[in-house]
């Protein structure tokens, strides 16, 4: 069960010719796949395309009606490999994952697929996780297209353009026997808008039907001598075919006047940003009617040389708007211009910053700088001489605190890292490697557990150099998502085979939680279309780990600490794996809250826990914060002149996970915390007992109260 349900939106996928779809970009892509007769879809979740996987998962009924096979692939590599179905069979297939990291993982399969070539249209939809909101290293997907020679689409970020690109992508793929990648940036994935829908199409040949008539052709296998033939085929046949197709079908677009001294060449995804800059300079109107020629590359690889040269005709300068680095398009067109003896000046990274997202102010500054260099007469007065004094607003950069992502309220991973921190407090700091997933937040304050991440499922593998052990054992962290993605073989298998004397902690929160709570093999929920409930401990024992510990309630901080200490100090010198399991609180609340509320309404006895702090017991030392960081645990300045420092307080959002109390106990912090359980619909005896208890306790309290001075304010 994913974090967000798309059951409602899935109904929009049934819309037919003449209807209008309004919604998010990612849903529009799904609809476009169905309209284009896709035969199979798959992928691996990750921002910003997680929702695409979630929608497909929620749309299984519709997909079955249309004879479309949906596979929630084990990894991006598995997803890309699935496109092999389009090598021999004329079936359209589409897979999705995030770039650049997902493409890294998929690159083996993508390279083989590109060499073999395809018969059916093969489309890879990549959510380019670059710029603001990104959670990965800042790199481009673009070079993968260049090295493997598949085509790269970068459509303008509006729904009709994205939807059209899906259809164009399949046809381009089929016309050139080459897989096509469509790149959509974070904001484009989440952009809202409308487009006119068409009827969904069943695939001409379904994957099920294809099995009845198997196809093969050894010339498509990547083995010599055909691998050499493939290479020649790519540049001699497929590339020219792509250029022809792109020109004939006008995949790239031209806006603005035909004649001008200057022009702008931009990636499709940059179009809106370019137009906004032109709008602010008075060179375009609200509808994008530009006074400057704009050549929009909806296909960013390959660049069609003849088309680029034609655009340069009669121009003295062109600006290449290309996000990220290296500036591959700029280099490529510069070479074209040079080879053809053009005198046109090519601007790009001379006016743009070399690296980073092209945000609004950067785009405006760079476009302005370009005009100032190339055609100052086109700039309005203010652009030529921007002398308007900036308002003198106080600098808040020293005041406003950074707010990196962190564990949610009640997160079951928090006590794991509190336990590890406590174990280290006793045994000293250890070498700790992190992985990809929510658990990587532990590398940030307040835990500061783990100092690097090398990739999904590679946490233990990235400690391999320390496998021989030493005075203190190395620790690595691996999530359940990463474990099943790649970790079982690359990390745990590696530890077993190399007799690693180190400790791997597998954080099992029942989901691929960081990407939105998708199920994985070890999820505990029953999933009608997937096989879940495969314990991680069985898997690691199965591949030869003999020292395995399972913790079933991570909130038991003392137990986490003690098991960590055991693993770090035991005489056993082989790989030690600790599986720490508790359900992701975000998903658990989503699952349990409605059930609990219904139970309360139905009159069933229900306990609802939450935590509190006795403010007069709390001394304001904030030791608890340094072992928690829970959003619901904050500090509060008391109205007491004797107090200097704010005291801990717990707000209404507390879900009563227990971490506060466990940490206070395990770390022997203080007695300030209490848990209050509200028992709804208590039984008759329970109510009677509570009344009598309160009576007895109240009598004692009154008695003592009467004998001493008591202050009310």
């Amino acid at each position, binding site marked *: 069960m994913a974090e967000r349900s798309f059951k409602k939106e899935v109904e929009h996928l049934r819309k037919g010719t003449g209807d209008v779809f309004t919604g998010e970009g990612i849903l529009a892509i799904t609809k476009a796949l169905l309209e284009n007769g896709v035969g199979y879809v798959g992928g691996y979740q990750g921002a910003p395309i997680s929702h695409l996987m979630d929608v497909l998962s929620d749309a299984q009924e519709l997909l079955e009606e249309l004879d479309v096979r949906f596979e929630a692939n084990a990894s991006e590599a598995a997803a890309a490999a699935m496109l092999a179905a389009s090598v021999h069979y004329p079936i359209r297939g589409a897979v999705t994952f995030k770039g650049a990291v997902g493409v890294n993982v998929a690159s083996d399969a993508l390279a083989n697929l590109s060499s073999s070539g395809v018969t059916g249209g093969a489309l890879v939809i990549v959510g380019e996780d670059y710029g603001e909101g990104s959670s990965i290293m800042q790199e481009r997907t673009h070079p993968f297209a260049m090295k493997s020679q598949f085509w790269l689409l970068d459509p303008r970020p509006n729904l009709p353009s994205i939807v059209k690109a899906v259809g164009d992508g399949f046809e381009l793929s089929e016309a050139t026997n080459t897989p096509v990648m469509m790149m959509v940036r974070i904001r484009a994935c989440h952009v809202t808008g409308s487009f006119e829908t068409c009827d969904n199409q069943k695939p001409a040949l379904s994957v099920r039907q294809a099995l009845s008539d198997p196809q093969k052709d050894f010339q498509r296998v990547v083995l010599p001598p055909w691998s050499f033939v493939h290479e020649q085929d790519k540049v001699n046949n497929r590339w020219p075919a792509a250029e022809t197709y792109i020109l004939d079908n006008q995949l790239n677009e031209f806006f603005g006047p035909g004649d001008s001294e200057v022009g702008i060449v931009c990636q499709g995804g940059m179009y809106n940003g370019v137009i906004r800059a032109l709008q602010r300079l008075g060179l375009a109107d*609200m509808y994008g009617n530009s006074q400057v020629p704009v050549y929009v590359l909806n296909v960013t690889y390959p660049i069609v040389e003849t088309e680029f040269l034609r655009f340069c005709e009669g121009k003295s300068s062109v600006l290449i708007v290309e996000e990220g680095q290296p500036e591959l398009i700029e280099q490529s067109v510069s070479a074209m211009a040079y080879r053809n003896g053009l005198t046109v000046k090519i601007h790009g990274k001379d006016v743009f910053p070399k690296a980073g997202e092209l945000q609004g102010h950067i785009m405006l500054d760079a476009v302005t700088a370009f005009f100032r260099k190339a055609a100052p007469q086109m700039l*309005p007065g203010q652009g030529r001489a921007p002398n308007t004094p900036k308002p003198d607003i106080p600098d808040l950069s020293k005041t406003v605190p950074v707010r990196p992502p962190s564990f949610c309220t009640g997160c079951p991973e928090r006590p794991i890292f509190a336990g590890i921190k406590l174990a280290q407090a006793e045994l000293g700091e250890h070498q700790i490697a992190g992985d990809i997933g929510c658990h990587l937040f532990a590398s940030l304050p307040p835990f500061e557990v783990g100092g690097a991440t090398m990739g999904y499922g590679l946490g233990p593998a990235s400690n391999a150099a320390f496998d021989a052990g030493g005075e203190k054992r190395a620790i690595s962290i691996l999530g359940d998502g990463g474990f099943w993605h790649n970790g079982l073989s690359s990390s745990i298998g590696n530890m077993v085979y190399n007799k690693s004397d180190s400790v791997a902690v597998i954080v099992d929160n029942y989901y691929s939680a960081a990407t939105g709570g998708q199920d994985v093999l070890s999820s505990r929920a029953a999933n009608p279309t997937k096989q879940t409930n495969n314990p991680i401990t069985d898997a690691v024992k199965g591949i030869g780990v003999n020292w395995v510990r399972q913790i079933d309630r991570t909130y038991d901080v003392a137990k986490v600490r003690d098991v960590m200490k055991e693993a770090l100090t035991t005489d056993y010198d082989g790989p030690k794996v600790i599986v720490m399991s508790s359900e992701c609180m975000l998903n658990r609340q989503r699952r349990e809250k409605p059930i609990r509320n219904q139970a309360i309404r139905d009159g069933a006895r229900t306990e609802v826990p939450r935590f509190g702090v006795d403010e007069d017991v709390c001394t304001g030392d904030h030791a608890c914060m340094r072992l928690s960081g829970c959003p619901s645990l904050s500090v509060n300045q008391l109205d007491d002149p004797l107090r200097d420092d704010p005291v801990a307080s717990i707000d209404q959002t507390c879900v009563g996970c227990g971490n506060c109390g466990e940490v206070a106990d395990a770390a022997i912090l203080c007695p300030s915390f209490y848990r209050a359980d509200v028992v709804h619909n208590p039984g008759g005896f329970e109510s009677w007992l509570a009344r009598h208890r309160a009576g007895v306790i109240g009598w004692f309290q009154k008695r003592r109260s009467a*004998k001493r001075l008591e202050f009310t304010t």
Partner: protein
Amino acid sequence: MNDMSQLPDAGPDQTVGEIIKLAVLAVGGQGGGVLGNWIEATARAQGWACQATSVAGVAQRTGSTIYYIEMAPKTGGDPVFSLMPTAGDLDIVIGAELMEAGRAIMRGFVTPDRTTLIASSHRVLSIAEKMVPGDGVVSPEEVRAAAEIATHQLFITDLDQVATENGSVISASLFGALAGSGALPFPRDAFEAAIRTGGRGVEPSLQAFSAAYDLASDGANEPAAAPANQAPDNRPVPVAPRGPADLRAAWNALSRRVDAFPEPVKEMARAGLKKTVDFQSADYGGQYLNRLDGILARDSAENDWSLSREAAKYIANAMAYDDVIRVADLKTRGSRAARVTAEVKPAGGTVLHVTEFMHPRAEEIVGLLPAKTGARWQANFSRMKTLDRLFNRGRRVRTDSVLGFMVLFLLGGLRGWRLKTLRHAQEVAHLETWLERVADTVGRDYALAVEIVRCRRLIKGYSDTHARGNSKYDRVMNALPLLAGRNDAADWIRRLREAALQDEKGEALDGALQTIASFADETDPT
């Protein structure tokens, strides 16, 4: 050269000005997405072209997030909207939390020529602010002051509270404030229709919307809070305590002693008296005043009695130390049960269970023994080990059950015994040494004496945290000989104390101490 004066001065196209640009800056999990959907639905229902985007992703896990919306009246064709906010080009900014509003100002999204800023003044503290051992909370005043300057129109109030009071969440009150501000050209019922169409938690959302709408349409910003400790006159005058007549008479006598104190000392002394009497007894309160008298005798109006004022604060805190008896007493009072109930607000017909998390160690047990016996036990390693084996473990005590309550109640009743205990003897010894140091210093260096008094702030917490605080205090005190005779000794002690409060282990403190050691070496010819 181009003659620029001959050229047309175009400026942005007229139609471009019709685009309304709106950004929501929020903390992940605040419901920024819901708010964005409502705004978008409102605009579309009014026949406007509208586009929303977000960078939802890992930031949804409690990080800073941003939602961006552009809209324009539909007059023909599809407008080309931007997918991201640009500094200096926003009409409306919604800050769902004060520092996120600050972030919007910092990023230049808020400009005085055109931006309406709708901000909630409540705080969601960042980890960095919460984890410092001292007070790490940043000043809200700077953001508020910047907001006054940076905005064209400002509406700021605690919209989180408005939402909570109406049983809803902040997205609803922010939406109400947006509607009430009049920054969007849509009627009120258009906004409300969007909430209804959304379909979830409609009634509470509409209530919170309405409350915020009224506040924003009145344009009534909440006043900035008066900085703490600056307006003592506004504090409630302490009401005389309840209790037996003889004790009240004793209190009145003590209270009259405070009345005779110099004005600047009175408020703190009264709070300190209350704390020490509450901790132990009226007699103990008398001892507190005696100690304070000792300081007052060395102080004068010349220095505005600041030594006495600080001493009034820290002597009280030192005398009302956090021992087992105090914790047990506080947790078993009727007033405490009432406070828990007020906090948890259990519905009628429910039963409340309260569990305390206690973890006594040998030190706590020995601390309860008579001073001499306790000291002997404490010196005996194997006996301490035995005690730890017997007692040192987490104890979950149900204080709503009679048995659990009675255990703590009886412990809390040991107040009469307290003054004989080892813990009390230790606290008194520490207190006396500290006050002697103050007494020794005040004649030579008044400012330094004040700073030494203030260093008592470093001692807080329980068990290891308490030990760490003590160690920091000792490290600061050990620097005193190095600073002897320096004019800036007081300033250095202040710096050391502030450094000690910056991090848990005292790394900043060690750094500052090294600086002192280095210049002490330089000036010392030996």
